């Protein structure tokens, strides 16, 4: 049986892991190589590294960080943040990413997903999708939360998968950093609309929240602050998920 995944996320800025609430007010949270190794030893199933600097210098730095993390990390590594074109994705893969996530650039030009899928394979092509609730639906948010578009989240997820995305990293903009639990209705809507794996992100504070997301259809759960704060470990989360009846790798 294909098991459910627990994926720590490192937001990286200028070679350091940072954390913030709703993408704002960054605080230092440690060395990316050290944390990547720690989480891998704890039984993390993959790692996501997001470059939150969004500057050309920051992207160069991110490639160096990816190179350093890759040397240490014996599990899959997804890298996102600031990927604008095929060449950016290629540079990250060459540096050691196994998958590349695109967000704003894919919204601007969905064909980028197709180019990545053809060049590197669909399994390397991840759509990072930030969603903000509006009434009974969700709208796509880009540019790290600065722009809310008219685009419907479920429609965009389907379009992106048709274009070439092999996985969706779905973040609830409303829940991110709140610890209030994932937006389960959002997860149900997107997971029901596409046939590719979906990673739930935004709002997790407990293993119970994660179990809810997996029951709502997510294939994997992303966690950042609860791990960086040292309140819990990947191994503790996975043992708890197993007790709650989830198939995880222990």
């Amino acid at each position, binding site marked *: 049986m294909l098991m*459910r995944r627990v994926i720590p996320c490192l937001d990286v800025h200028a070679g350091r892991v940072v954390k913030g609430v709703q993408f704002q007010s960054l605080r230092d949270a440690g060395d990316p190589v050290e944390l990547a190794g720690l989480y891998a030893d704890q039984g993390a199933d993959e790692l996501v590294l997001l470059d939150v600097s969004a500057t050309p210098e920051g992207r160069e730095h991110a490639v160096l960080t990816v190179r350093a993390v890759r040397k240490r990390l014996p*599990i899959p590594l997804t890298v996102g943040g600031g990927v604008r074109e095929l060449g950016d994705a290629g540079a990250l893969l060459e540096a*050691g990413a*196994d998958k590349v996530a695109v967000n704003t650039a894919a919204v601007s030009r969905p064909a980028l997903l197709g180019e990545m899928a053809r060049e590197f*394979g*669909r*399994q390397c092509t991840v759509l990072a999708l930030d969603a903000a609730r509006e009434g009974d639906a969700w709208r796509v948010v880009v540019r790290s939360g600065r722009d809310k578009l008219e685009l419907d989240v479920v429609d965009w997820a389907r379009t992106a998968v048709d274009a070439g995305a092999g996985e969706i990293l779905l973040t609830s903009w409303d829940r991110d950093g709140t610890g209030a639990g994932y937006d389960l209705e959002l997860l149900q809507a997107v997971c029901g609309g596409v046939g590719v*794996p979906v990673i739930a992100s935004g709002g997790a504070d407990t293993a119970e929240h994660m179990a809810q997301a997996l029951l709502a259809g997510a*294939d*994997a759960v992303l966690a950042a602050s609860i791990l960086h704060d040292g309140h819990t470990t990947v191994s503790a989360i996975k043992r708890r998920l197993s007790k709650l009846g989830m198939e995880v790798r222990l």
Partner: protein
Amino acid sequence: MSADVLIVRTGAANLASVVAAFERLGRSVDITDNAFAVRTAKRVVLPGVGAFAPVAERLRENGMGEAVVHRVEEDLPTLAVCLGLHLLAAGSEEAEGGRGLGVLDVEAFRFPDTVVVPQLGWNTVTADADCRLLMDGAAYFANSYRITHRPAGWQVAWSDHAGPFVAAVERGNVLGCQFHPELSGEWGQRLIERWLDNGGESSC
């Protein structure tokens, strides 16, 4: 001095993960697109990212495919990963009739839409009792196509996603993995070590 492990440059992008896995084990790694080097190296890895048709075409054109076939037939230490495994097969649905190297008398087919595709994540591996390198455990898979039948003359480990499929095959010093051992944590590292040790013994 020649490297401990030679990786075939198939034209696909990410070789960093497989390079890092061998370097973590203290082995030196070189990357080549030279057919003679592939034919004569101590140990060769046929890596696994990219699309079937262009990679198969490239291997045939520059003679590296023939060199890989020679290695498998002569039982020279060879590791094929993911797409690398499919390239050893007769063909893949991915390439719509495109031919593989044909050392495995089976073909790869896409997972049905009744399951999540691509398969991305850790899945259980159950090795047949006659396997020497492969063991039970969990491995990381990233694939949309898989082989569902045992190739004649090979020992097999199995996994399950919409029914049983071939997680890996082994015969002597040749190991072909549908999963990515280089991304399969400690379990994957131990498998790579067993493959390295096995190759070491036979090359003495």
